[in-house]
């Protein structure tokens, strides 16, 4: 039999060497401490080649934005394009157009075009509603939303159409004595376009309808080869993501690869794959990155814009052994939170709000075999009146950049 010490050494050798990232991180932490000790300022400024790269990126962004503006103003009225990357309306003389934020970050992008001044409001939808409600006789307002295709239930209501959309395909959505609203729902490229055309008259004249059609012709729908949407974009306790999108071939049985970049990582890695359905839509359920991440879809050597998904750590507060004064609090995540603190809060019936009772520093860790999940926890004592309602709150300041704040379930003492 081999010497037990040798066997023990063999056992130790089975464990991998440090990865470059762990060593690099430790080196950076040490360097920071050394810089502080040396009285040197931390290096906020980047090396020269990084500065040049950043300057290049800014220049490209500015140039592309400027080019889009020029293209919009030089486009002949009555034309519509799907080759431009963007969602919304090209402007025309006498019209005000506004587009919302990029699609993918939220459920749907939206855009407004009106031949009257817009009424300022909290968001674009409210602006459209307020302006549409006070349109003059010849006033026209078009409000369009752009949702990514791929969810079969949603796609069913949107027949495929090419641009430009025509008012001939519109149906009357609502009508009153002094206004009429038409609606067009169409699948265009990788998006479901829902356009509402508001008129300031119950029976718009032929001339007004023609003006509205001319602006509708200036609707632009981005031509992206592959799209992705995440729902929800903020993951709570026990929640998982549904990802969906579409490919512009509109064919079934295409393979779409889902790539994710965890917070703190520098590159994307493949995490899953999905097949497209008839029409090019695809979806993938139950994806859980366990950490804030960027997710994108890849198909046919092309990649979608990434969508950001934010995650909360798992926070659990429990009574120990049925005691009303001994508890354990656990924060579980892909990262460990050793020496971070959790705030134990008690619900004040009288005030109707949560009040902090104490901070508990997490000093113990555990991990489950074969899992990348690390639990950081602490046992503690807390004297509270009987029947108090408690919860643990893990603040954003302690969670770091890769997680949102987290709450535990409620515990009754």
């Amino acid at each position, binding site marked *: 039999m081999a010497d037990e010490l040798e*066997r*023990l050494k063999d056992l130790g050798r089975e464990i991998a060497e*440090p990865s470059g990232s*762990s060593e690099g991180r*430790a080196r950076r932490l040490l360097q920071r401490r050394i810089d502080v000790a040396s009285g040197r300022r931390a290096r906020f400024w980047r090396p020269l080649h990084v500065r040049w790269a950043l300057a290049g990126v800014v220049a490209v962004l500015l140039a592309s934005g400027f080019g889009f503006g020029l293209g919009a103003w030089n486009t002949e009225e009555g034309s519509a394009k799907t080759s431009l990357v963007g969602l919304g309306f090209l402007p025309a003389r006498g019209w005000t157009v506004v587009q919302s934020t990029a699609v993918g970050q939220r459920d749907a992008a939206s855009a407004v075009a009106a031949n009257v001044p817009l009424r300022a409001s909290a968001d674009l939808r409210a602006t459209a509603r307020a302006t549409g409600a006070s349109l003059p006789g010849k006033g026209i307002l078009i409000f369009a939303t752009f949702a990514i295709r791929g969810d079969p239930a949603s796609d069913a209501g949107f027949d495929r159409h090419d641009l430009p959309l025509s008012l001939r395909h519109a149906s009357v959505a609502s009508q009153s004595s002094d206004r009429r609203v038409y609606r067009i729902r169409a699948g265009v490229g990788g998006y479901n376009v829902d356009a509402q055309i508001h008129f300031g008259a119950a029976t718009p004249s032929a001339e007004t309808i023609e003006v509205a059609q001319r602006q509708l012709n200036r609707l632009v729908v981005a031509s992206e080869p592959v799209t992705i949407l995440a729902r929800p974009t903020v993951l709570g306790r026990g929640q998982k993501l549904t990802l969906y999108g579409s490919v512009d071939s509109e064919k079934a049985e295409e393979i779409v690869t889902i790539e994710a970049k965890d917070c703190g990582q520098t590159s994307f890695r493949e995490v899953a794959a999905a097949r497209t359905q008839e029409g090019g839509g695809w979806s993938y359920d139950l994806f859980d990155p366990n950490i804030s991440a960027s997710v994108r879809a890849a198909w046919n050597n092309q990649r979608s814009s990434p969508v950001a998904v934010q995650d909360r750590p798992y926070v659990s507060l429990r009574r120990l052994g049925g005691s009303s004064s001994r508890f354990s609090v656990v924060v579980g995540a892909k990262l460990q939170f050793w020496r971070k603190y959790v705030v134990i809060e008690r619900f004040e019936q009288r005030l109707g709000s949560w009040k902090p009772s104490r901070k508990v520093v997490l000093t113990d860790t*555990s991990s489950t075999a074969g899992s990348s999940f*690390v639990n950081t926890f602490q046992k503690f004592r807390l004297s509270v009146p009987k029947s108090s309602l408690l919860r643990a709150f893990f603040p954003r300041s302690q969670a770091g950049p890769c997680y949102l704040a987290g709450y535990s379930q409620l515990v009754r003492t």
Partner: protein
Amino acid sequence: MLPRGLEQPDSSVNRLAVCGKYPVMNGLEPTDGAVFERSLSEPQIFTVIFERYYRPVYGYLSRRVGQAIADDLAAETFTRAFERRSSYDRAAERALPWLLGIAVNLLAHHRRSEGRQLRALAALREPEPGEHPADAATRRLDATTSRQRLALALERLDDYDREALLLVAWGELTYVEVASVLKIPVGTVRSRLHRARRKLRQALEPRSDDNVIELPRTEARSG
């Protein structure tokens, strides 16, 4: 130019060049004690200690508590070492025992993780490429018998005995160095090692019930 305090008799074969942020040693390397002494006035020189000992310290920690926790503990070990560099005994032959001493203190907060790590070692083995899961399971049963006993016996050792044993086996320290890490006499180290090795030997001896595999305890996720 070699910084003052690190000179050797033949300066042509013993230079410290600075490559990027980190000093790189050529020829004869200065002792750890000289690096520590110099780091008091030139903190940047401490990165030499990091380059020399990060891997052994990380390796020791990752074997004890797993890589996820070792990442943080190894980084913490070196930042603490830097802050306490003035207390380092510059007459010591090498800095590894002193660094492992800091690491061992940090490990005290992670006893539970260590238990899980040992049980994971006993239970887990990656399948060979292309191997059918059923074959892998059979092979695992054969392969894990002794390793499992070893890991479980290790887990059952007294904390003090295990500490001494692992500093020798995984930290690759001498008895004298272990004594300095644990701040105990060398004789005590010897007796702890003797006791620990005897228990491991007993655990590894063939038994009549070798066909019975003791499954490692699995613990549900806390909370």
